[in-house]
């Protein structure tokens, strides 16, 4: 029995709880600190990415291109559901001609950035965390350090920028395919006038208000999800269980971060205060 365990047995319950709370708080702040330093070193490593674009291109493929199919199919279905649901509500008020506007605004402002970021966290984020965590567990990161190669510059930075750059493009793809899905259901199936569908959309969507804000959101989400995924992998305990926990935490923390940040950003962009 260690001294700590012996002490823990003698102390009153309240002290034990307090000790537990203290340790938890220290862990949380410790992790936040490590995360911040990690981000700092990653951003400093960006020079390596600029001088060796080959590293970035490989990662753009595995992080971005390989997510395209998932994002496109999901976008299509989300757009189709939006059109179905929107049509039933709008037709009650005789406003089914604004269906195009409604589908496009929902996608560009909210669903495009948010849903594609959630999918991105599940597809690319978990893969990044597992990859980095396994590289750590199999001493590949350590081995690189001993070969005088900085893993932050060589491994982390290219992945970070790949995620950061892919996310807005994937969100744009999601919205675009979603609008096509809305068109297929709204115009081809439900019989909304094609001209009205597009012209209302064109008149209603504002470039600065809607599109730029949507892009800002997806940039922020891309930044945060990739940061969480890479940090969780890098900070993982180097065991099978540690890597699995890191992967799970990546998806859970990313989802929370995306939804909470979405609220904050929406309030800042569209809130009247």
């Amino acid at each position, binding site marked *: 029995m260690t001294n700590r365990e012996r002490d823990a047995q003698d102390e009153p319950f309240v002290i034990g709880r307090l000790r537990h709370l203290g340790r938890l708080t220290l862990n949380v702040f410790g992790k936040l600190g490590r995360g911040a330093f990690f981000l700092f070193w990653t951003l400093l490593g960006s020079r390596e990415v600029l001088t060796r674009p080959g590293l970035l291109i490989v990662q753009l493929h595995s992080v971005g291109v390989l997510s395209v199919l998932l994002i496109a199919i999901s976008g299509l279905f989300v757009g189709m559901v939006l059109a179905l649901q929107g049509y039933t509500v709008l037709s009650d008020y005789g406003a089914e001609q604004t269906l195009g506007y409604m589908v496009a605004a929902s996608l560009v402002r909210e669903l495009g950035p948010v849903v594609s970021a959630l999918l991105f966290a599940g597809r690319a984020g978990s893969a990044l965390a597992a990859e980095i965590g396994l590289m750590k567990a*199999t*001493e*590949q990161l350590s*081995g690189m*350090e*001993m*070969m*005088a*190669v900085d893993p932050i510059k060589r491994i982390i930075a290219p992945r970070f920028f790949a995620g950061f750059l892919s996310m807005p493009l994937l969100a744009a793809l999601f919205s675009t395919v979603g609008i096509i899905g809305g068109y297929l259901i709204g115009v081809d199936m439900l019989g909304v006038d094609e001209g009205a569908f597009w012209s209302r959309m064109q008149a209603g969507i504002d470039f600065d208000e809607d599109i730029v804000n949507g892009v800002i959101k997806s940039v922020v989400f891309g930044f945060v999800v990739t940061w969480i995924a890479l940090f969780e992998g890098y900070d993982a305990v180097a065991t099978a269980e540690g890597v699995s926990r890191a992967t799970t935490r990546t998806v859970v923390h990313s989802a929370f971060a995306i939804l909470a940040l979405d609220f904050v950003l929406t309030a800042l962009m569209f809130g009247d205060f």
Partner: protein
Amino acid sequence: MKEACGRESLVAIRDLTFFRESRMIFDGVSLDIPVGKITAIMGPSGTGKTTLLRLIGGQLRPDGGSVSVDGQIVHALRSHQLYSLRKRIGMLFQSGALLTDLDVFENVAFPLREHTRLPESLIRSLVLMKLQAVGLRGARHLMPSELSGGMARRVALARAIALDPMMIMYDEPFAGQDPISLGVLVQLIRNLNEALGLTSIIVSHDVHETASIADYIYVISQGKVVGHGTPDAIIRSDSEWVQQFFKGLPDGPVHFHYPAREYAEDLYAS
């Protein structure tokens, strides 16, 4: 820096103390690694032998004492100085630590591509020479997942010598190897050390293989150096502990039973 017997030492460790959280790993360890020799650091599992290699490579910082390599205090170096020192040190990890997304050829070429601007034809020749040295020139197109444990270690060895280092550190090179791979590795370590004029540090608990190639052995237990000398001197040592370790006796100063209360008392306790 001169060792007691007058040979020049490449690595000098003085009064090293190191804690992992509150657990003491090293408690005043001092040792010298002579130039051009194979020095073994032996001890039971969990004595921090790998930690010692990480301290020498500057991946960990000591809590007390000093570690110097080639006259430079490792933990006082700035990061670019540390990186240029590491280019002159090869390390063979227990798992091989090959990059799993690259094939054998690219793994060996990795340090060359990262640190040099050599033309592709020269990189190819260098990599093939290093692979020839470990007998795996024909395996250059295989992926790390297609290699056996012994082959992976040989590839890692080829990679470790890619930049022609002054020193190689081997972390448990013999652990979990079949007799043939074992023989191959023992011979490779010996031959490379002589042919390339290296200095080698082997961390191991495989008594016979290590004793057969080491010039000098340090035995570490519970954070201290409990014995050192040439393999013959160590095997003849009168330390009970060293005798238990080298003969693999189940009981001795290191007890078979984990500390517990009396057996009978424990059985009758309800």
